[in-house]
């Protein structure tokens, strides 16, 4: 378990640094690229937890599509090459306070509730199990999500259309 722990902390460090850069950097495109780092780190954490499928879904959906959409949107709205100074408004301290408050509360709750629970990984989750779960136990949510996606698709098309 030592190796996994080392890997976790390396990934976590990268993710934390990336997340901070996402919310502080002055260059929009750089922010999106730092977000890639965070998301890739997230996928790596999932693999550490033996949950392969969701990790690669994260890669294909988030990195392959969502980030690309972000970059697409940024570039369509005239990506500036040089850093912009006005990317942050003057709510820095209230924002920081809110974030600290929330994260602090969460951390306290977590530490309080699951103080030293350990994750015991026996075997990686096979894709088959997920399929069974989705199409047996969670069929209704699955359908609902499908309808939601369709609605989002139609909505996006309607909004982006010419007239």
């Amino acid at each position, binding site marked *: 378990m030592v190796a996994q722990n080392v890997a976790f902390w390396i990934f976590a460090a990268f993710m934390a640094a990336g997340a901070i850069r996402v919310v502080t950097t002055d260059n929009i495109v750089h922010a999106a690229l730092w977000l890639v780092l965070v998301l890739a780190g997230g996928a790596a954490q999932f693999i550490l937890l033996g949950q392969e499928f969701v990790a690669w879904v994260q890669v294909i959906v988030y990195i392959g599509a969502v980030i690309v959409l972000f970059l697409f949107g940024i570039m*369509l*709205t*005239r990506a500036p090459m040089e850093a912009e100074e006005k990317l942050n408004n003057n709510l820095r301290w209230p924002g920081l306070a809110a974030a600290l408050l929330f994260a602090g509360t969460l951390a306290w709750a977590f530490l309080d509730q699951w103080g030293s629970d350990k994750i015991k990984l026996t075997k990686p989750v096979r894709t088959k199990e997920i399929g069974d779960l989705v199409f047996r136990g969670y069929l209704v949510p699955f359908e609902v999500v499908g309808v939601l996606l369709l609605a989002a698709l139609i909505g996006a098309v309607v909004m*982006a*259309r*010419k*007239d």
Partner: protein
Amino acid sequence: MTSFEVDPKLYSPLADSQLNVELDTGDMILNIGPQHPATHGTLRLVVRLDGERVIKADPVIGYMHRGYEKLTEYRTYPQITTLVNRIDWLSSFANEVPFIGAAEKLMNIEATPRALYIRTILTEMARISTFLLFLGEMGLQVGAITPAFFGFRDREYTLNLIESATGGRFHPNYNRIGGLKEDLPWGWVAECRNTMKKMLDSCDEFEDLVMGNPIFQARTRGIGIIPAELGASYGVSGSNLRASGVDWDLRRDGEPLLPYNEIEWKTFTHQDGDSFARYWVRLQETRESARMILQLLEQLPAGPIMAKVPRIIKVPEGEIYVNAENPLGEMGYYIISKGATGPFRVKIRTASFSNVSILPWLLQGIYVPDVITVLASLYFILGDIDR
């Protein structure tokens, strides 16, 4: 559509939201050229884009201006042929003929029949070599690389023929006032006949490979439509105009410099006026030119290639305008002579200059890839625009 011209600070957002704007995501000014593969030369197009749609296109010419009209005033007539065959460098032989014809008309000299026939053959050969390049190049511009190499390969055959007859591949300088520099080499006629049959085959090949391709049709049909009247009023000529359905060919309708009326041939027109029509018309004309050459070779008269011409050529006073159907369209020379060894003033009417003048109208509202299709299908030579 024109929201890009308005300063966003000057009007309220609400008013703009009622405008029926497209997915207008910040327009961008793109310089296509002067160094860009699609402009085959140094044409510059300043294109204002909204996404990939062209709002406005301005051709900027003059990067290749070499001042030939002025230079001719300081040269003698025989020297000028070397200049004018550099105007449209792909069909240089065809550039010489109207100029020499104009000088001959001013001097009242008639070239010998054999010389006229050989001029016709070589003019048509220049047409074939130009159009072959077009047939391949058009494929290249819409993304297929293979036709370009086929075009170059087949063009090589005609260039070899031109070289073996005139000594120059690109700039023959073969015409003299009253005739030609020298006669055709031995065996040339048979070789030419073989090559022309090859050209007929290669036209079939292009018909299959390029014109029959569904993607090519999808890319060219309905793109860059020139209405017949508008095209004529912009001065578009040659195959571009015939592709819009105007049956006008100076080889038949103009004052013939060359014996086109002694052979059987026809012109081709297309109703659509789009890029595909221009390709179609040029392909048919290539084939027709090959057939014309085969006929001319059959009827090639014997005899001298040079008429009686004074030693020192002085063109009598007068002025004349002679035009001819060049591969790119109507090419004309307006010559004013004051009786010296060189002309007093020469005005050159080149086909490409008029052909590209329609570009700002033609490019409005189409996509960037179609700009390239339209540019390729109009088929201009930069030397022919800038002179």
